[in-house]
């Protein structure tokens, strides 16, 4: 693997800590939206090939994935994804919309509602990271995507072995069959830039 993308222990710790802060804000936002306690997992940071990343996301290969995808741009760039594992979509939508709407209207609003949740959670994570790194990021409009992990990550044959950085954190609602996974993917040139931003952040801490 390219030595330029390997992380030193301190860089790794800094990324995990910044992800923890950003996702903590995202969890607080989700909790406010749903009026439920949200449990957060430990952040995961891995350097993988795109194909390995797809395998990683396919927790239930027999089921298609429902996800919200947002491309982000700036000094480093990539894809932010919020993956939903919902055994009961209507229960989740009712928690979110807090209105006694008929089921057919809720189903009509599903994509819109999930995009709004995705936008809020992914933005909380990304832009908190940007604030802490003193960088400016922009994001595209959220996309509602479904399919296999390979389809969602839009992996073609030439990209399968490309190395990417995968950052992941899981959200779960206690007593409800609702889990969400936030994933951030950076490709090789972006990883190098991201490391540079992390080094600047660490440099300021040492001053």
């Amino acid at each position: 693997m390219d030595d330029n993308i390997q992380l030193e222990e301190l860089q790794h710790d800094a990324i995990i800590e910044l992800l923890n802060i950003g996702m903590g804000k995202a969890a607080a936002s989700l909790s406010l939206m749903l009026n439920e306690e949200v449990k957060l997992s430990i952040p995961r940071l891995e350097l993988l090939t795109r194909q390995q990343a797809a395998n990683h996301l396919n927790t239930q290969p027999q089921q298609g994935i429902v996800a919200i995808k947002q491309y982000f741009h700036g000094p480093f760039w990539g894809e932010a994804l919020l993956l939903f594992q919902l055994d009961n979509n209507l229960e989740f939508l009712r928690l979110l919309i807090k209105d006694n709407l008929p089921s057919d209207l809720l189903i009509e609003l599903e994509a819109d509602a999930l995009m709004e949740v995705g936008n809020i959670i992914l933005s909380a994570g990304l832009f908190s990271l940007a604030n802490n790194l003193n960088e400016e990021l922009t994001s595209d409009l959220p996309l509602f995507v479904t399919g296999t992990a390979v389809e969602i990550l839009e992996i073609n044959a030439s990209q399968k072995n490309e190395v990417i950085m995968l950052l992941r954190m899981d959200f779960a609602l206690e007593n409800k069959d609702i889990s969400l996974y936030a994933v951030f993917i950076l490709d090789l040139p972006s990883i190098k830039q991201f490391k540079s931003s992390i080094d600047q952040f660490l440099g300021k801490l040492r001053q």
Partner: protein
Amino acid sequence: MTSHMILVVDDSRVSRMLVRAIIDHDNEQIQVIEAGNGEEALSKTQDIQVTIAILDLNMPGMDGLVLASKLLARFPKAKIGLLTANVQDIVREKAHALGITFIPKPITEERILGFIYG
């Protein structure tokens, strides 16, 4: 509050529904105009007086900051809030520079009514 005309602009229908529900629940006399983007908002407000506007930032076409500056040119006394998930300091600063209020998403009754009555 009966004379208020509140413009709500967001490309998310769910977000517009949430804001409208909070306003309706508080005071059904307040008139709410919804638009899904900036162009629609400008078109729908050509012949009316907007006193309060709640604008999403990231929308197809013009963003909420551009829309805010156009609305302020048309309604200089309007109170405008930028309702956004983009919590970057730079966005807060841009909102502040325009003289509008930064309202972070998610949408809550406290945040929406706090802006309207604050």
